[in-house]
């Protein structure tokens, strides 16, 4: 039945995606909710929250705020908080409540900017879309707001866009990517994972951008248009993610975010796999699709696809194992935080 979930819990929503992008950048993040959404975002979808403080707040909406559309109250609360906190920008992030009452985010942003004197981002997430949609909106809003100055291109500087724990399921991914490029004599800047707002402001100085998740593709295109910065798509760390198995002649089904899955496909083909199909629960960009790739919406889409006996190997998050009790091939677990809410346990490996 459409929309019915019997095995999997709901995936990370768009508001969690937006927070994931902005979490480390030193702004005040206000989730426009009654409290429950911020609890979900922080307590479940933001693994950095337990170890690293961030100015993240709930708007604390109550029924009468929603019924009467009291945006002025939110602006007043935000202004009062900004007076007490050392923050460089403010972001207002939507949830189902403002989506239902039709909050005018542009007006809310303008009012807040005027009152606080801070740059304000408004992300019109609604809690019904998935994390990648929220990330896409947040990446674009962030770079459009802050990456405004032309700068001379710095040779060897690589901008990495799209790195979040939701997508990469690894809190040290930023460091690993920086090290990888450093070994090649390049300076990688991993926006939102270790590199902050100043790096975003200097985006024009990158020699090229590396897009590591589909949600950053639109931003890479924007930066190309704005500053002429070229981009490539890929995730070089996949080489260390695949367990040592004999993939020769194997038919492999991968379920993950599209960029990481495509990078895995490339690696598997190099290791001798005969057929690799990519599918994803999340947005699949047409320019990154190969023939036969599949977008999954319902649980049945996946169980029917995986039921085909031709698959020798299925690569997916561990939580999907229970959906395939009759699968007799090799299950390789590679975590996807946005699906299971669990981080990668190094090293990923074949299911036991």
């Amino acid at each position, binding site marked *: 039945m459409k929309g019915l979930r019997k095995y999997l819990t*709901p995936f990370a929503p768009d508001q969690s995606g937006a927070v994931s992008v902005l979490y480390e950048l030193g702004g005040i993040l206000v989730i426009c909710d009654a409290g429950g959404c911020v609890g979900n975002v922080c307590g479940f979808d933001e693994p950095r929250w337990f170890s690293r403080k961030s100015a993240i707040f709930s708007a604390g909406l109550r029924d009468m705020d929603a019924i009467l559309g009291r945006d002025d109250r939110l602006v007043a609360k935000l202004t009062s908080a900004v007076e007490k906190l050392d923050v460089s920008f403010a972001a207002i992030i939507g949830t189902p409540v403002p989506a239902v009452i039709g909050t005018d985010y542009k007006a809310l942003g303008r009012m807040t900017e005027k009152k606080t004197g801070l740059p304000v981002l408004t992300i019109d997430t609604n809690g019904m879309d998935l994390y990648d949609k929220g990330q896409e909106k947040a990446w674009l809003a962030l770079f459009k707001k802050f990456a405004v100055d032309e700068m001379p291109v710095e040779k060897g500087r690589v901008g990495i866009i799209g790195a979040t724990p939701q997508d990469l399921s690894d809190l040290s991914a930023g460091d690993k990517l920086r090290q990888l490029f450093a070994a090649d004599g390049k300076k990688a800047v991993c926006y939102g994972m270790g590199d902050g707002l100043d790096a975003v402001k200097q985006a024009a100085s990158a020699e090229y951008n590396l897009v590591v998740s589909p949600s950053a593709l639109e931003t890479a295109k924007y930066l190309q248009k704005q500053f002429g910065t070229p981009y490539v798509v890929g995730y070089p760390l996949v080489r260390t993610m695949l367990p040592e198995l004999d993939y020769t002649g194997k038919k492999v089904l991968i379920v993950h975010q599209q960029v990481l899955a495509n990078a895995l496909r490339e690696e598997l083909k190099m290791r001798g796999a005969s057929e690799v199909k990519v599918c994803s629960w999340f947005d699949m960009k047409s320019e990154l699709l190969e023939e036969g790739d599949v977008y999954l919406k319902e649980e049945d889409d996946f169980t029917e696809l995986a039921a085909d006996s031709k698959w020798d190997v299925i690569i997916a998050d561990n939580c999907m194992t229970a959906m395939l009790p009759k699968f007799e091939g090799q299950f390789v677990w590679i975590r996807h935080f946005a699906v299971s809410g669990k981080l990668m346990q190094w090293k990923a490996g074949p299911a036991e």
Partner: protein
Amino acid sequence: MMQDAFFCTVGELAAMGRENIPPQFISGAHLIYSSPATLAFNSPGAEGFGVKRAGLAIPDSIMLIVAPGCCGRNTSLISSMREYDQRFFYLMMDETDIVTGRHLKKIPKAVKEICDSLEKKPSVVMICITCVDALLGTDMERVCRKAQEAAGLPVRPCYMYALTREGRKPPMVHVRQSLYSLLEPRKKKGNVVNLLGFFSPLVDDCELYDLLHQAGVKTIHEISACRDYEEYQTMSEANFNLVLHPEARFAAEDFHDRLKIPFIELTRLYQIDKIGSQYRAFGKVLGVTFDDQAAAESAQKAVDAFKAQYPETAFAVGECMNGDAFELSLALVRYGFKVPEIYGTITAENFIYIKQLAAISPETRVYSNMEPTMLYYDGGNSGVNMAIGKDAAYYHQNCPNVMWNQDRQPYGYAGVRRLFEALTEAENRWEEQP
């Protein structure tokens, strides 16, 4: 730029009075800071008992969460507990559902499909709906009746309306009412009592069980201890209900109106003498005199033992624990300890403890976990050397702590004794650390 967390001393708060509580302590007056110390407020379901977990207190029940995906996201934390395996299902709403309300038509079909797919039929299906349906004004009672017809078993609504958390009937009050709404009138038995308020039983050695037996009670029901649906139904045979948590008051009133079962309310306290007075008053209502001396003595012994070993303990007391932060602080100060800091929400009920604390420990600082400047809280010079509560433990990671937020509920003298035993154990463990 102020870089200190806002606080008031207990003395200042008492002087200002209940009518003049500073806005920093009123959650609706400011943005609500999100830190691990406020998780229980922002997302009661993320730990302990929120609406989702509480809604499944009826034996063999299942829950269908009908909501935008974001509302059910953290449920996998609960689903991973063995007792909730295969008990949560989701019907996810999209924007079209919100505009057209078509999701409501899908609910009966979804309930039937789930029930048909399960090996064992559930006793009840709880339909959990969220803020979106609160705003849409959904008549969930009607939808549940339709679903009940389709599935052939009871279907009840469960409202996870965070928007109404400070209203007359917040979600945790509503869910308690919902849980008991399936009880049918039965013949009363004079020796049966229900304990209302918690979603897990009291600690095994709680003296309240013995005291009730002394009063002639033979059967004590707690919803979480019912083995099956039939046993749950026997709760309507009770002679009276004992309300142990104020959020169960509405449910108790419902019992009274619908099933003609009266109720008596008791408060969870950590002051040994006050526990005794409460039991005496309770006994008077029942027409008995309780013998609670042994239980009171063992509680006092635990307090004395801890005090003998750790007389200089200075506590930080948080609100994320099984008790009222202000009442527990008052108890600790009366036992002779220091309480430099409390993290709590001020209510009409606990202001009385603030006034009493002001007389004996006016310099105790009170912080609100939710206030924005808690981002800058630094407990380095607080003088605290032990923490009680999950929030207090988060702020004071460099001293021993007792979370005191376990599912099994500490109560009465047994609660005091167990708390001080836990404190002693935590101190000993801390000292043994390399």
